[in-house]
């Protein structure tokens, strides 16, 4: 790895982090229900949506808010499911693509609504332009908007304010955050070489006289919301490794910044909304520290390369290049893989199945922890859950009732947190075991890596990431249905339980802060928070990763 690569990585992260605070404060303003200057800019678009949609700006209880989120998302899944099922007969289908079979349509609709974007189809041949431009894009906006709305309601409850209205929050997120940024960046992506056309595939005769059909489409408008909304689903089968979906080092840089922007800015939104900026900063710095350590591990491993290949005596200064693109190289591919899993985006510019075992482990670990920034909204709810666990553990150690933002955390909240904690290993480990037992034929890489393939698929589904070890033969009814269910529960269960916990906290009286209160905005708390993440999160999965990537690593060691 050259110094320039390191400098490029440092500059990329620095720019993303510098943007995080102003973006976070802007988000806080978007969800401030008082009249602000933003109303003038976006009211013209919002008013007709409220009117035509029949949305009234009434405050909801946590139960109403959670129900609105769950029910509206379920209805959207059904609507888009129908589009996929009938795309063969619907217009905007110049490629003559057939309708989707039921289990694949079930999986794909849930996948995009839950912000996962696991793809068991290939974009070039599986979806008509109508499905891409109406079905998929619609969910790529509403999914992150729903998740961010959930997180904002959660934060409002913690700060003792009314929860607000789900539909208003979702619409504001779309009109004031997602749509304007996506629009501008889509044009920027075209300037970088990303296609934006409604023409069907071009047919070329290559220099050596062969026929080459070149798939294209409205890629740029898809790409910007894919990254900014932490969606991650590719227009093309290989996602951002495709030269049309990520043509240059510059477009790669921009995608990484876009992925990080919302997740990294939410701690600042939180700090502003609960009126404790220091606490937001402590959470931000804690996550950043975990991120940097994981990135360092992945970079080292990818730049060292595959010992088995290196032993052949070829020139291997470039590091591991199987499944990677020359324009990104090993370093910026490793960075992308860490960012996309930390932010639960799930887009890839390198094939994760071909990452070195330790590079693959870092990607998987990010999703298992789901607290190193985490996806827009849902990730931050998870982070705050771990913050409460940290408070609870500290309370146990000193023998006091734990308090968070002046509210006592008691039995009811801890029970809700405990079931939320338990659901993630259940969603990952149980189906992995089932898949390995019942469907070993779908696994393409044998040995320890085979276990990693199944484990990665369910980890990615449960954490709503959506990247995959794509060698897996996952376009079968078993994988479609099982991951569909895991994605759905992985998404909505924690949102509902955590809204319940926040609702319960909101109903309590504030306890005045005394000298004996355990502070949640200093370095000590940051350390306890990281400890809680590592002990509770990492230890749960250690046995599984020891049998997968770690065992594979040991077999490759020269």
């Amino acid at each position: 790895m050259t110094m320039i690569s390191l400098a490029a990585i440092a500059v990329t992260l620095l720019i993303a982090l510098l943007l995080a605070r102003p973006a976070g404060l802007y988000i806080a303003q978007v969800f401030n229900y008082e009249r602000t200057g933003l109303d003038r800019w976006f009211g013209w678009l919002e008013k007709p949506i409220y009117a035509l949609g029949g949305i009234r700006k009434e405050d909801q209880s946590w139960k109403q808010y959670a129900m609105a989120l769950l029910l509206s998302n379920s209805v959207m899944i059904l609507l888009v499911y129908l589009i996929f099922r009938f795309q063969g007969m619907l217009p905007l289908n110049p490629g003559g693509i057939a309708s989707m079979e039921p289990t694949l349509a079930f999986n794909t609709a849930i996948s995009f609504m839950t912000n996962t974007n696991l793809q068991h189809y290939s974009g070039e041949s599986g979806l008509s332009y109508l499905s891409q431009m109406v079905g998929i894009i619609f969910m790529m906006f509403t999914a992150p908007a729903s998740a961010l709305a959930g997180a904002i309601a959660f934060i409002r409850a913690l700060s003792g304010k009314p929860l607000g209205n789900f539909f208003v929050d979702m619409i504001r997120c779309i009109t004031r955050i997602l749509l304007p940024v996506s629009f501008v960046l889509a044009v920027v992506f075209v300037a970088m070489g990303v296609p934006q056309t409604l023409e069907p595939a071009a047919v070329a005769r290559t220099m050596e006289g062969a026929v080459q059909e070149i798939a294209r489409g409205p890629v740029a408008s898809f790409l910007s919301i894919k990254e900014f909304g932490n969606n991650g689903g590719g227009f093309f089968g290989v996602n951002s490794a495709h030269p049309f979906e990520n043509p240059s080092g510059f477009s790669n840089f921009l995608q990484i910044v876009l992925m990080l922007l919302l997740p990294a800015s939410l701690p600042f939104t939180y700090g502003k909304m609960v009126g404790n900026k220091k606490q937001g900063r402590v959470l931000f710095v804690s996550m950043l520290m975990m991120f940097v350590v994981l990135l360092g591990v992945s970079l080292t491993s990818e730049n060292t390369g595959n010992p088995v290949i290196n032993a052949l005596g070829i020139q291997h200064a470039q590091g591991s290049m199987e499944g990677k693109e020359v324009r990104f190289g090993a370093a910026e591919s490793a960075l992308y893989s860490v960012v996309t899993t930390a932010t639960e985006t799930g887009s890839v510019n390198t094939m994760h199945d071909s990452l070195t075992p330790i590079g693959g482990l870092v990607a998987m670990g990010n999703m298992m922890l789901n607290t190193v920034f985490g996806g827009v909204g849902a990730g931050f709810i998870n982070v705050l859950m771990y913050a409460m666990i940290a408070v609870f553990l500290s309370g146990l150690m000193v023998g006091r009732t734990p308090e968070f933002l002046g509210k006592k955390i008691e039995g009811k909240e801890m029970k809700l947190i405990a079931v939320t904690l338990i659901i993630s290993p259940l969603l990952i480990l149980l189906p992995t075991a089932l898949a390995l037992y019942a469907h070993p034929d779908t696994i393409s890489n044998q040995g320890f890596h085979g276990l990693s393939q199944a484990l990665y698929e369910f980890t990615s589904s449960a954490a709503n990431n959506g990247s995959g070890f794509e060698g897996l033969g996952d376009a079968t009814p078993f994988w479609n249905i099982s991951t569909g269910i895991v994605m759905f529960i992985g998404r909505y269960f924690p949102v509902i339980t955590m809204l319940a916990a926040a609702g319960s906290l909101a109903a309590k009286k504030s306890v005045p802060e005394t000298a004996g209160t355990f502070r949640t905005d200093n370095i000590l708390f940051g350390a306890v928070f990281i400890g809680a993440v590592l002990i509770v999160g990492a230890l749960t999965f250690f046995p599984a990763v020891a049998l997968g990537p770690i065992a594979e690593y040991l077999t490759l060691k020269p």
Partner: protein
Amino acid sequence: MKTITVTIRTSIFLMIIFLVYQLAVTGIAQVFMPHKANGSLVYDGNNQLIGSELIGQTFVSPRYFHGRVSSIEYNAAASGTPNYAPSNPDLLERIQASVAEWKAANPDVPVNKLPVDLITNSGSGLDPDISPASARAQIPRISGLTGIPKETLEKLVTEHTDGRDLGLFGEERVNVLKLNMALSELLAK
């Protein structure tokens, strides 16, 4: 019930808004940047479409520079890789075969001058680029077969080496299609 009707009504309106968004981007792209918006297509002197500068293509003739390994043979109607794990024995076997092939076709260039990107499958199977070192390693073979002096080819590779964006992002690379088009012009002279 109310939530359901609100969702359906809002969804339909949003779908229209997002469609307008995409059509607006398409309009702007097609008016101001038609070349890029349509896939950076490349035509030859007779206005015949020969490919895209962003998409790699297969070169079999040893007189041309070769690109990276592609399990889909640069079929750009799709994209993909075999997704080999680092521990997969098939990966080692394929690379050993590539190395043997290299030795046979390039007797003047020792294996330790063979860069790893040339014998690995790219992520997309459509990688248009190779590293400058991979282009240089092929110069002795092409020079021997075409009679073009090595220095001329060296100059050609240098001219076709794209730097990092803003001197920082991405890696140095050589676009194989553009390089071969220039090579073919040289041969025609």
